[in-house]
């Protein structure tokens, strides 16, 4: 072997490798520490009476029988928390005009969705608390429910909040170029479609859970929760319970999945903290599956009318749509429920050269559970609107769907540039990704198979999507609008006396492997075997200040902070080593846990160095001030978001007699910049695709007209299961982002954002010879048979 070492040949080169994560074995062996595992002395348990109506006046409760149940400690109603909890309002100043009403953890005068907390029973056990719930007599007067977002905007519709004067929470329009002229131009073929995107939800393996403990002697609240953003929750509890932020400690140990569900302010969790403060005793609340379906935020719920004009040579002449989305009775605090609509306006058409673009979105209150940010916020809607119109239009003019993309995708050498909606784009690879996709899926082979199958009455379809994903957001996402949400993150790297590294970060672990990649980055850049690195995340008392997990930012932002901290510590250690070894830092390296010469020969172990610093400082020159800990923070500047891109394809077979769709294959090419751990990235993409398949084919929170959720159980709400899932082939194009040294963008949401459009296209491709088409998700057998005119 000769020649200089490349990055991957260096000892401890972990970035870019499929390093197994330390947490996996611990979790598999049942050693996880989830919130429900926590047992504190004198701990009580909470259960909630929830509104059985979507809309009702709350007159009062007869609590006598419930209070008499042995083991019941305290019962609190919404009114009892007035003065204890400051109401919260989910608005942000950069979403101009967004309105919402003050919200309390439990309904006070009016209940506005089925499942809204009304009364909290605190007892020796959850079972006892539930016994008492059954004995509460609630005096409720049902009010007219407003469930359909279009009807909610009709004049004379019942108001969900009298104080707001309207059920419209927010409206935004974008108008670029001359849309009317473009549609009217000669030779432009226009397709117009009405899309419906059903509500669905995250279905985390671990439900939401919290233990709150309050120490009245110090005024300190400790809140263990299953969540994504400890520092955000610290602010929220401090502000709304009247505490100092430094007196609130929020801890998130192991978390069994989040997907954006666990980053919001939930009344039952706030009530748990408030009750702990009132009682001075620890209180546990663990949502059961019914409560999860009724109160974990829902997502999507859009009705979109869209049209696209295509010139005879397949160029997009114009794109226009009108979106209406139902968000439940409040805008969720503190992120708001307008971000998804905003994303839909920002992202639709972003992969393509589009000069004429007009869009409107209206965000509407209704008496259903709150809607808010869930994995791939707005993306499935945006990608489906543009790419389904594009494929339908291509079919109309008889052009192949790969070819129509070739004619419209932004060129890989055209960045930096802007999208039609004004998004700043850089470092994307749509063209390369599409060609790679066509190659790995054997596009021509699948087309031949499709033609062959049709001859025997088998209806297969192929659908594509070219997509962008918003990752690594700057303060432009939330902070700019006044939200207590950090877009920067911090990392601390500390060399301990034993020669191991103790690292901590403000991004959090939800099961996706963040702790693993943080260890990879630190070990790689510092120069130490990864099994000498220990990671702490998810504790506001001990980690640097930062935003946590959301918007596919953990690796790109938290990872870059970790890289910078590791590099800084390496320099600091080499400064100390140079003094001890009487040489220059530039003549030394750190490899495999030892200080070495540049040729790799060992000069001293890190443990020797650290022990000298910590135990025998007398051996060091007195003017030397060794620092064996480094902290760095990182935020994205110059760009509001770091976009990634991808190209995906689905192959389906539709049983045209039953309406059943079988996904035969799925392919995803993802450009997330630097791939830190290919195994974890591939699993993120696959998991995301499966959630996308869920939204496209299976998952829907079904409400009746009265606002009653009809399928709030795992038997009736269908999540995709392994047996029905296709093989998902993942490939990468790596275009590192220029915004960081690490070069990593996010990868967590692409699959969920892109898969639904690819599936809708594939199903429509399969149905097209029969003249059927469907633009409603999920694409259930009944809807497909209706599209075919069979029933």
């Amino acid at each position, binding site marked *: 072997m000769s020649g200089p070492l490349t990055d991957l040949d260096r000892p401890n080169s972990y970035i870019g490798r499929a390093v197994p994560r330390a947490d996996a074995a611990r979790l598999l062996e049942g050693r996880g520490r989830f919130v429900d595992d926590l047992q504190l002395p004198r701990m009580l348990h909470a259960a909630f009476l929830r509104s059985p109506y979507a809309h009702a006046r709350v007159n009062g409760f007869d609590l006598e029988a419930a209070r008499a149940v042995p083991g019941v400690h305290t019962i609190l109603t919404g009114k009892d928390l007035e003065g204890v909890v400051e109401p919260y309002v989910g608005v942000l100043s950069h979403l101009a005009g967004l309105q919402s009403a003050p919200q309390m953890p439990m309904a006070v005068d009016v209940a506005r969705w089925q499942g809204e907390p009304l009364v909290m029973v605190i007892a020796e056990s959850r*079972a006892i608390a*539930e016994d008492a719930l059954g004995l509460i007599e609630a005096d409720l007067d049902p009010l007219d429910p407003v469930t359909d977002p279009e009807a909610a905007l009709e004049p004379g519709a019942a108001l969900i909040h009298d104080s707001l004067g309207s059920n419209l929470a927010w409206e935004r329009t974008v108008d670029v170029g001359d849309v009317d002229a473009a549609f009217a131009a000669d030779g432009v073929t226009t397709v117009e479609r009405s899309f419906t995107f059903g509500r669905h939800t995250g279905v985390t393996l671990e439900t939401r859970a919290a233990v709150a403990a309050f120490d009245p002697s110090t005024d300190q609240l400790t809140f263990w929760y299953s969540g994504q953003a400890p520092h955000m929750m610290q602010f929220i509890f401090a502000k709304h319970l009247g505490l100092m932020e430094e007196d609130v400690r929020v801890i998130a140990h192991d978390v069994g999945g989040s997907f954006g569900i666990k980053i919001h302010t939930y009344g039952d969790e706030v009530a748990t903290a408030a009750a702990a403060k009132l009682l001075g005793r620890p209180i546990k609340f663990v949502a059961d599956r019914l409560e999860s379906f009724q109160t974990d935020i829902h997502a999507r719920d859009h009705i979109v009318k869209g049209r696209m004009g295509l010139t005879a040579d397949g160029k997009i002449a114009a794109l226009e749509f009108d979106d209406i989305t139902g968000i439940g009775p409040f805008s969720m605090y503190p992120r708001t429920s307008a971000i998804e609509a905003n994303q839909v306006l920002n992202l639709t058409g972003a992969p393509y050269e589009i000069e004429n673009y007009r869009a409107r979105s209206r965000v509407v209150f209704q008496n259903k559970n709150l809607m808010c940010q869930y994995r791939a916020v707005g993306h499935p809607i945006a990608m489906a609107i543009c790419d389904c119109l594009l494929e339908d239009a291509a079919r109309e003019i008889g052009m192949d769907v790969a070819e129509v993309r070739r004619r419209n995708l932004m060129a890989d050498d055209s960045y930096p540039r802007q999208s039609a909606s004004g998004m700043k784009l850089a470092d994307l690879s749509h063209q390369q990704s599409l060609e790679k996709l066509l190659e790995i899926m054997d596009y021509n082979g699948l087309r031949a198979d499709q033609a062959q199958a049709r001859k025997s009455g088998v209806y297969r379809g192929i659908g594509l999507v070219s997509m962008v994903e918003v990752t690594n957001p700057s303060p432009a996402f939330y902070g700019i609008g006044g939200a207590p949400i950090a877009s920067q993150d911090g990392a601390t790297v500390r060399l301990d006396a034993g020669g191991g590294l103790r690292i901590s970060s403000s991004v959090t672990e939800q099961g996706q492997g963040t702790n693993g990649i943080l260890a990879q980055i630190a070990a790689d850049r510092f120069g130490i075997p990864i099994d000498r690195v220990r990671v702490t995340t998810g504790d506001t008392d001990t980690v640097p200040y930062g935003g946590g997990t959301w918007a596919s930012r953990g690796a790109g932002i938290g990872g870059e902070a970790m890289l910078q901290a590791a590099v800084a510590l390496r320099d600091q250690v080499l400064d100390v080593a140079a003094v001890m070894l009487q040489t220059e830092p530039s003549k030394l390296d750190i490899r495999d846990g030892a200080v070495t010469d540049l040729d790799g020969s060992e000069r001293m172990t890190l443990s020797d160095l650290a022990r000298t610093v910590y135990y025998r400082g007398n051996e060091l020159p007195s003017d030397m001030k060794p620092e064996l800990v480094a902290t760095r923070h990182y935020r994205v500047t110059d760009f509001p978001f770091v976009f990634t891109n991808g190209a995906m394809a689905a192959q389906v077979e539709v049983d045209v007699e*039953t309406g059943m769709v079988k996904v035969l294959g799925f392919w995803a090419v993802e450009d997330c910049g630097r791939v830190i751990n290919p195994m974890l990235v591939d699993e993120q993409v696959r998991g995301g695709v499966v959630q996308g398949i869920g939204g496209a084919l299976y998952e829907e929170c079904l409400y009746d007209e009265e606002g009653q959720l009809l399928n709030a159980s795992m038997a009736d709400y269908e999540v995709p*299961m392994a047996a029905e899932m296709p093989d998902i082939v993942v490939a990468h194009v790596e275009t590192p982002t220029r915004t960081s040294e690490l070069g990593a963008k996010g990868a967590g949401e692409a699959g969920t954002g892109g898969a639904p459009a690819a599936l809708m296209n594939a199903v429509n491709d399969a149905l097209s010879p029969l003249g059927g088409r469907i633009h409603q998700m999920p694409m259930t*057998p009944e809807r497909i048979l209706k599209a075919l005119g069979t029933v």
Partner: protein
Amino acid sequence: MKAQDFRYERPSTMDEALAILADTDQEAQPLAGGQSLMPMMNFRLAAPDVLVDLGGVPELSGICEDNGEIVIGAMTRYRDLMASEMVARDVPLLAAALPHIAHPAIRNRGTLGGSLALSDPAAESPAVLLALGGSVDLRSASGQRSVAADEFFFGLYETARQPEELITAVRLPKAAPGHRFGFYEITRRHGDYAMIGVAVAQAPDWRIAFFSVAGTPLRATDAEAVLNADASDIDAAVAALASLEIDGDRHGDPAMKRHLAGVALRRAIGGMS
């Protein structure tokens, strides 16, 4: 989602179990595999005072032949039915239905008796019993009786069984040479309760039982009559499903379900052996 407090009894003889069920001062409910009852208790849809675990009563389990019938003890688990050569050979319709019932973890505990006692309208085994024209053995502290399949299913989760009665066994006629059977079920995900399903027997008369169409499994007697007259006139048999009283559910309205019933019937007949 925690069950209300209850007492737990695990009798070791049938008589003890029946005595507890006969005591009208308390509401007692038998516990078989628990795969339906435990979730219902956690949802507080069921809240018995006493849970009578039948797992300790040996004579409730087992498969044997008796006078041209295969007799299956109520507590026989699905997995044991799937492993049974006698079931595979002599009750092929049941054997065909079993893999459609839930997943291995549930089949390890779930029982045939539990399924018939519960009588979920979307469950497979009630329709198999009905298509085969079998019967259910019931026993209480005061006596025993056998109820024919056609008289067993009353309505949604309602059967001929009285609260103090146990299902002790299920009797299914043994298949004879020349008898043919078909089974077809449509589910969105493997192991789900059916969107629609049908069990078909030609032994030698036709019996067709649909499930997941109404509150109980339903016999398609008009379609049976068509096929009894001309076994090749499948189109007419499907058309005769117009007389079935089919309810809609979250999978589709009655028209959709009737359409699927026709598809399922064609496919079941097409796969008969």
